[in-house]
């Protein structure tokens, strides 16, 4: 297992290969459908994503009072959401922000893979639906943006994570596990229905 700490450097990211199991640590931000649409429509981003991580996630959060860290929220459940919906927006997001880690589930398309290769980013597969395990890895919720406009499930949450386990699904050298498995399963499917 390979440990990654925020800020995620280009060198650390370039060293990863598809299939590697990684442990993500430090600051990450969530963004999903409305966040990406906002970005594509030319909206301003609330934080600097350079050397950062974008997590496709709609968490279940509850308000907390009197947290020793001053946090106003706690994550009860928080796994990844399906990433393909962000395919149209992600290449531009990677290019313009300098984000290094895209975390989600299901993988993304060839254009995103090309952007990962060109700008030095990787796609990490978190375990879909593993909400309790993911919530445990999210130690703190220091900030939230767009809560009122996008709602809790779609807001841009700032998390501090510890040992958030993922698999490198797409690396920065043009290899996508998802594409390989798609092709192999299609060949097998053709045999089965022949």
């Amino acid at each position, binding site marked *: 297992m390979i440990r990654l700490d925020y800020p995620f450097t280009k060198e650390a990211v370039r060293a990863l290969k598809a*299939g590697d*199991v990684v442990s993500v640590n430090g600051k990450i931000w969530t963004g999903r459908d*409305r966040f990406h649409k906002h970005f594509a429509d030319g909206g301003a981003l609330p934080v600097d994503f350079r050397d950062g991580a974008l997590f496709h*996630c*709609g*968490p*279940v959060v*509850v308000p907390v009072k009197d947290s020793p860290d001053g946090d106003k929220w706690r994550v*009860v*459940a*928080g*796994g990844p*959401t*399906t990433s*393909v919906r962000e395919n149209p927006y992600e290449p531009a997001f990677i290019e313009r922000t300098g984000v290094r880690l895209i975390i989600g*589930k*299901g*993988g993304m398309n060839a254009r995103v893979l090309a952007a990962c290769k060109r700008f030095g980013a990787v796609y990490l*597969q978190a*375990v*879909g*639906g*593993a*909400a*309790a*395990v*993911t*919530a*445990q890895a999210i130690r703190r919720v220091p900030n939230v943006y767009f809560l009122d406009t996008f*709602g*809790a*499930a779609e807001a841009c949450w700032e998390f501090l994570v510890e040992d958030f*386990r993922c*698999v490198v*699904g797409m690396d920065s050298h043009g290899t996508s*596990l*998802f594409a*390989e*498995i*798609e092709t*192999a*399963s*299609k060949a*097998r*499917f053709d045999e*089965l*229905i022949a």
Partner: protein
Amino acid sequence: MKPVVKQIAELVHTTSSSLPPDAETAIRKALRRETRGSSARMVLDTILKNVVLARAAGTPVCQDTGTLTFFVDERLRRKAPRAAFNEAVAYASGQGWLRRNTIDAIGGGSIDSNVCPGSPVVHYVPAGDGEPCIRLIMKGGGSENMSRQFSLPDATLGAGRDLEGVRKCVLSAVQQAQGFGCAPGFLGVCIGGDRAGGFEEAKRQLLRALDDVNPDPRLARLEKRLLAEANSLGIGPMGLGGKTTLLAVKIGSRPRLPASFFVTVAYMCWAARRGVLRI
């Protein structure tokens, strides 16, 4: 709060925070079949840890607490009216047992209580054997997006109006879904029906115990064959490759019109949350 409302709210809480024991056992068995050190094994191991954690803490197994579909024995219509489900779901949402998960389709606003016309879904169904009960399925959007409906004949698949055609449709749905629906999945399939009824019946098939045997031997054989063939596709847990792509296939049927022959596939993620409340 009326006792029945409290009972339904508790059913929602239990269903959201635990997997049925047979589903958990199926995942445990699948893990043993996967190669040591593989991503398939890492994923299944994380899933099992997650199930244990969620159960102990009473928190959602999956953050997408899904569409809540209740199947209610019609003998309970008076004791458990629609309003009781609405009240229970609003209460469960306030407790953090459910995500704020309901979006107004036109305006895009969040309906924080998860209660509005059409949510939750409540079907009153003909009385079954035994004591009357309320069954609940919680199915997330990632898996719902992978559900498919085919209309036979289908020239692309070379699928005709027979069980061989059905087999091709189901395999196509699994191959298309890859890991997007949070594999390993459970399939509910309906042969026939109109379009809406097909999806309702396919979802109802997901209520079946994993070890039950289809009373129709033709469907029982098809279920077994499809499970083995789907697992030979190599898609694996979360689509990262492996031996476990599906954990179960359950097939039912509804009568159809002469002109229509639908095959409906309800794809359920590994977090196959189903619960039952006996009253």
